């Protein structure tokens, strides 16, 4: 060792060292956060940054916003300094932003799935460890990221509208909030449509339908925004406004979850239970509707029977649509799905209807329809004479309450009849062809066209019936029957036979389906294969058994 001191490397000043340390910590944290991000979000963000389409769209948005500002200010002129023209400028920016958020982003979501299928990257993606939910979530968050980028690009312009006066901050936030929610909802629907088929021709048809639908939604959004901005200001000070907004938000969220889960189930492998999560959401939705209806019936005390008839029709249509989709499920329950079937008596009685299968779906939809009809009729009864509650306006007569009750009974009969006939047809057609959700829905559409479209045509072409109103020929025409009943809240002349005819028809169809229902009810739990049990035990040893078995298990 030499006696000379070794030259030491020049140390950076302490402040710079602190910054470097802080930077290294931040980088490590960011990287760890990046690891947690959905891989599809990361990949699509990277792709978008290099994509010409995104650069062009983003550039166009900025150019339109700048152009709108210049033209708008030129038209407003000196009034910009002392007038209240914020709403006008906001409307300009809203149209630009709404086009990006309601047309470009959702269509991009639809195309991103379609392109994956066209380029066959979807197959490779589907066999990775990414679950179907992660794939759909990745696509949705990618759409959300795009929305935020567009929104942040135009936010200085939106701030500018506030400075121009004439529009308050809450209105701006409220409108933008709903715009983002609408964009997210439309993106979820677009993703669901993207999962419906892998056939090129059908994809093209779906693309056209998606664009038309998105443009329609864009038009509706513009119309609503214009009404809010120029005709009817939002009554923020009224509590009912926020109650209604809360109700709308909860309904929106429930449907968003339903659509998201439907898209997930579409790309989930066949042996997985793809139906139970959807049915749980349907029940939650039903409970949500019940809650809001109770609020409206008891707290707000809406005394108009038409309101209850309207609610009933909406709920019945909801269950009818859900039932139509559930009929497309496979009647064979996979061994994997059978591993988790309820075993106890109570569990089997109450939870069997949550199992996948068209027949269980049929019964499930009927239960939902029955509950909806009972709930709305009860609502009418509570606020009517039967409940003895004095409501705003006139008291409801027993006849009118009975009208709502009758509407419920007939709606239930129609749902049982139409879904039941479709179930019989699907079972028959499955001997020769594969019927999926899309096919089942199409069968239902055809049935409705025949049942509701044909009788009015026949009646119109028949001399004795031509000039009459509702006749027994319209027994299968639920549009005519229910709208007449809802309008009068009591049986229109000539409809008395239907009261007996429809339940008989519905019961007959239900009885014909009993064999299929019983077959699906007979499935029992099966044990896990040994290899699966071995791996599960190796990955997570089973916890000690609970002291008392649950009667619901």
């Amino acid at each position, binding site marked *: 060792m030499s006696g000379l001191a070794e030259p030491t490397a020049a140390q950076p000043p302490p402040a710079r060292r602190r910054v470097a340390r802080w930077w290294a910590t931040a980088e490590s944290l960011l990287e760890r956060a990046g690891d947690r991000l959905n891989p599809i979000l990361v990949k699509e963000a990277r792709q978008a940054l290099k994509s010409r389409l995104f650069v062009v769209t983003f550039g166009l948005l900025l150019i339109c916003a700048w152009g709108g500002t210049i033209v708008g200010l030129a038209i407003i002129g000196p009034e910009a300094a002392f007038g209240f023209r914020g709403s006008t400028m906001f409307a300009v920016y809203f149209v630009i932003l709404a086009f990006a958020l309601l047309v470009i982003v959702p269509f991009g979501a639809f195309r991103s799935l379609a392109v994956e299928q066209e380029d066959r990257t979807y197959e490779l993606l589907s066999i990775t*460890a990414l679950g179907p939910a992660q794939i759909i979530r990745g696509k949705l968050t990618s759409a959300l990221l795009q929305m935020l980028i567009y929104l942040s690009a135009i936010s200085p312009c939106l701030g500018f509208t506030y400075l121009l006066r004439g529009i308050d901050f809450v209105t701006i936030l409220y409108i933008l909030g709903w715009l983002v929610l609408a964009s997210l909802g439309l993106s979820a629907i677009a993703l669901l449509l993207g999962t419906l088929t892998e056939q090129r021709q059908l994809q093209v048809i779906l693309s056209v339908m998606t664009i038309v639908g998105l443009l329609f939604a864009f038009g509706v959004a513009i119309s609503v925004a214009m009404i809010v901005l120029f005709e009817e200001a939002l009554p923020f000070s009224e509590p009912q406004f926020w109650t209604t907004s809360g109700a709308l938000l909860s309904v929106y969220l429930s449907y968003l979850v339903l659509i998201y889960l439907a898209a997930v189930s579409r790309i989930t492998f066949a*042996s997985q239970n793809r139906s139970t999560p959807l049915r749980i959401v349907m029940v939650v939705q039903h409970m949500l509707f019940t809650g809001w209806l109770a609020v409206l019936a008891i707290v707000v005390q809406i005394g108009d029977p038409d309101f209850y008839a309207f609610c009933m029709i909406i709920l019945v249509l909801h269950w009818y649509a859900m039932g139509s989709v559930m009929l497309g499920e496979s009647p064979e329950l996979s061994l994997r799905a059978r591993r988790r079937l309820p075993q106890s008596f109570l569990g089997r009685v109450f939870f069997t209807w949550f199992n996948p299968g068209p027949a269980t779906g049929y019964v499930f939809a009927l239960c939902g329809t029955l509950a909806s009809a009972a709930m709305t009729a009860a609502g009418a009864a509570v606020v009517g004479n039967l409940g003895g509650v004095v409501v705003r306006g006139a008291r409801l007569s027993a006849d009118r309450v009975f009208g709502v009750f009758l509407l419920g009974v007939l709606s239930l009969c129609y749902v049982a009849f139409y879904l039941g006939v479709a179930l019989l047809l699907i079972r028959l057609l499955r001997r020769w062809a594969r019927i999926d959700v899309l096919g089942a829905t199409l069968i239902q559409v055809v049935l409705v066209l025949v049942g509701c479209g044909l009788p009015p045509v026949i009646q119109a072409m028949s001399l004795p019936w031509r000039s009459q109103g509702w006749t027994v020929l319209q027994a299968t025409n639920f549009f005519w029957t229910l709208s007449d009943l809802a309008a009068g809240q009591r049986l229109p002349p000539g409809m008395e036979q239907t009261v007996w005819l429809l339940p008989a028809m519905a019961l007959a169809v239900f009885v014909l389906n009993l064999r299929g229902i019983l077959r699906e009810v007979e499935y029992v739990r099966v044990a896990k294969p040994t290899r699966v049990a071995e791996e599960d035990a190796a990955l997570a040893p089973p916890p000690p058994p609970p002291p008392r078995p649950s009667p619901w298990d």
Partner: protein
Amino acid sequence: MSHAMIELRGLHRFFGPTRAVDDVSFQVHAGQVFGYIGPNGAGKTTSMRILATLDQPTAGDAFVDGFSVVEDPDRVRRRLGFMPDYFGTYANVDVAEYLDFYARAYHLRGPARREAVDRVMHFTGLDVLADKPINGLSKGMKQRLCLGRALVHDPPVMVLDEPAAGLDPRARIELREMIRGLAKQGKTILISSHILTELAEMCDVVGIIERGKLIAVGTVDEIQSRVRRPHNVVEVALLDGVDVLGNWLLERPGVSAIALDGQTLRFAHEGNAEAEADLLRAMIEAGFRVSAFGARRQTLEDVFMQVTQGLVQ
């Protein structure tokens, strides 16, 4: 013997009246390389897609490491690396990003992910092209990238569908070396290819499929002994009179499967080297102007030609 890492059990896959896979059963044990061969449309890709959980069998089942591809595809996917007969690449993505995406998709995080991507790029020789856009890669490089994608989560089972299709000789040899490397690592490999000479060098076991039916399984020697008595393939080149030689040979004992290729004639001959020498002498004595005469053991190609009938559906 070790347990089967791949098992097809009475596998059927029908597309309407077409029986793409018709009651196929075989096993591949841990560490084995199984060559899956057959004419175009024989059902190789369909079986492989079912194994990769991309398709559902009409009947029967397939298992990877004991897990059913029908009932537990999620568990199968974690153990399987599938390289299909197409690339499946994204636009506006470079090599490193592509592999990074799939590493993330297999839930690899932080250093483990970086190590996996580096390992795969090094193994496939793509490290020098890490920042290159995928669209600019040659076919051979894309094929390497796809092999890398299938390997990124280090699966014990690999299913490779025609990995050498459309590659130039150099790229093919390089790919073959990579697959040999994987076999040395102890991976169980199911590989289909129509370049039979290459398969013969790599595979421990061969399965021959035609019109959806598995018609032979075993080593090349086993199949050969099962199909016909062992024989050599003899090639004779003549200056002229090849057609006449064909007829002349048909009258000789132990001669069969005569095929003509220009001025060269190929036939199967049952007998030892002495019998072959006698045959050559007889040919010359009969006046044929022989310019070349050689005998060799049967190759996989010869076995394949004997076993299959060239039928398509």
